[in-house]
């Protein structure tokens, strides 16, 4: 799973791979349009539904948060 998430990030926001901070959105590493692309790709690759309530800055603050989100949704599925 982690490898696939990293592949998606590499495609849409390579900078996220090396980002070590706590808020990619506020620090301008990632913007809302990139988040839309990443969500769409995650849904397709993992065949999951990412409800709008999960599309918040906290779940996209860094690559680990994105992986945590996918892990939770895969467990719920």
């Amino acid at each position: 799973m982690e490898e696939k998430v990293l592949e998606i990030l590499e495609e849409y926001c390579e900078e996220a791979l090396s980002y070590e901070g706590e808020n990619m959105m506020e620090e301008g590493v990632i913007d809302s349009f990139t988040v839309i692309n990443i969500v769409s790709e995650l849904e397709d690759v993992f065949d999951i539904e990412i409800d709008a309530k999960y599309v918040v800055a906290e779940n996209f603050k860094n690559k680990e948060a994105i992986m945590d989100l996918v892990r939770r949704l895969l467990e719920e599925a």
Partner: protein
Amino acid sequence: METEFQRVVVIGYGKAAGEILKYIADRQADYGYRLEFIEHEQHALSVTKKICEERGISFSVLPDKRELGGYLNEIQEKTLLVSASNNYLFPASLVERAEITIINFHNALLPDYPGRNAPSWVIYQGEKRTGITWHYVTAGVDEGNIIIQKTCGIGPDTKAYELTEQLMDLAFEGFTECFDAVLSEKAEARPQAFSPERRMYRSTEMPGEGFLDLQEEPEKIYRLLRSVDYGKTGVFPPLQTEVKGARAEVLRYRKVSPEKKKEEAGTLYLPLADGNLLKIKYRLL
């Protein structure tokens, strides 16, 4: 550089509002105006608050229309209001005040596609080009004189959110080109030429009336899907459809090559003219 505007107020959300806010803040030293930002519509991924904090810009959240109207009505000094991705309709009583000038960014080439969700409608109608318009705000919606326009193409696979992003970049570009002229009140604005067919798109309207008819041409279906695709931002509710007589909701879609076709429940494939397949994932209701 000189201006009679003592105060600049930015109201809006999203990338365009953020970039414009930063630009106006950077130009403050040139003109000496007071700058503030008003967030009327709140979005989960908004970064404008952070921009304001970093640059010491006054930041207010005024989600209530009446409260916002009251706040703006109290403005006394000569003020430029910059409306960037803002859906609040300024009342005539404000627009007509001599000391207030309002400019608005509309995400289409006015006088075409006035009103809401223009990127959706241009994609749905199969337009090949669109753009942005900065115009002065009058009492009529999207009717004011045009200050500047910028155009861009619409690709065969362009989704509403992608076009929106492109238009926001154009809005910023256009703004930087006309800001000085607006501040010095020397912008050469031209009136709009309205055609009798001009129609206003309302927030309650949705392309295809929100229904995906699977009997339609796949290209038209693809256009409808792309036209309402704003990711998870909730601009539109999910499209409804009917699969083998059963009501269903569209979950997502994707253009795929034929070799990627996989027979699975809740998924259908439609052939597109370019040889690819339109994969539609749905959920029965």
